[in-house]
């Protein structure tokens, strides 16, 4: 991501495994926990919240909570969560969430998985990662990018 602040992150990866296998790794809470580094309790269910202890080294004191949106077998799995909810003393529940979507498609030799996380624009500044530190410059270029970006994604809060 050079010189811009996107609203979304998108990742594409081809996995040498059938869609059914990838689907299970995504939507079985136990398997999800393994690769995502969390210990989720219960199962994923549309409209339901699921949470568990983060097992990522250094973040074990945190709880991850996700609200499942859609589960279309072997095709689409999505949930909302609070990205970077890293301060256990802060109640993030009133803040906007980002939407995480996993899309599965057939690909030669396996499954094309597309992951998007979107909604960063709506996050309060506190979640957009701002520390007041010196910047080496590059403002003009950044402003041009932002200008283009906000022109094509008008913010409802503007």
């Amino acid at each position, binding site marked *: 991501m050079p010189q811009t602040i996107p609203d979304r992150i998108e990742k594409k990866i081809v996995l*040498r495994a059938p869609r059914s296998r990838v689907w299970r790794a995504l939507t079985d809470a136990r398997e999800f926990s393994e690769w995502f580094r969390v210990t989720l309790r219960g199962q994923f269910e549309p409209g339901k919240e699921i949470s568990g202890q*983060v097992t*990522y080294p250094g973040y074990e004191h945190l709880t991850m909570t996700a609200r499942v949106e859609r589960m279309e077998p072997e095709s689409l799995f999505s949930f909302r969560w609070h990205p970077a909810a890293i301060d256990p003393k802060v109640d993030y529940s009133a803040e906007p969430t980002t939407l995480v979507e996993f899309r599965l498609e057939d690909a030669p030799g396996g499954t094309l998985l597309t992951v998007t996380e979107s909604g960063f624009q709506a*996050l309060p*500044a506190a979640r957009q990662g701002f520390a007041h*530190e010196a910047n080496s410059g590059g403002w003009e270029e950044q402003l041009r990018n932002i200008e283009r970006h*906000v022109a094509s994604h008008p913010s409802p809060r503007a």
Partner: protein
Amino acid sequence: MSPAIHHRAPEPSSLFAALGDPTRLALVRRLSAGGALSVTALTTGTRISRQAVTKHLGILARAGLVESERRGRERLWALAPGRIHDARRALEQISREWDDALERLRRLVER
């Protein structure tokens, strides 16, 4: 995947909301030329009233994009850079964490 964004700003207001306005963007552009300017200087040559400029500067300040300092009888406004830079870096960090998580997913489903 691990949480990435560490810093807390004093007021929750969106950077994008702050910049999603042509007048405010113009003010930021003007200030990005460098140096601190008074409201009078920022109003000169525009059709925008002092009150409007002051209001827009307030919004930019709450988003942490500009800061002001009193000099004698005037208040001077300047860019507080770093915000955009930091936001971008935070997203890059989240992006890297997704890469790592997906690599772990690959190891799980391909074994």
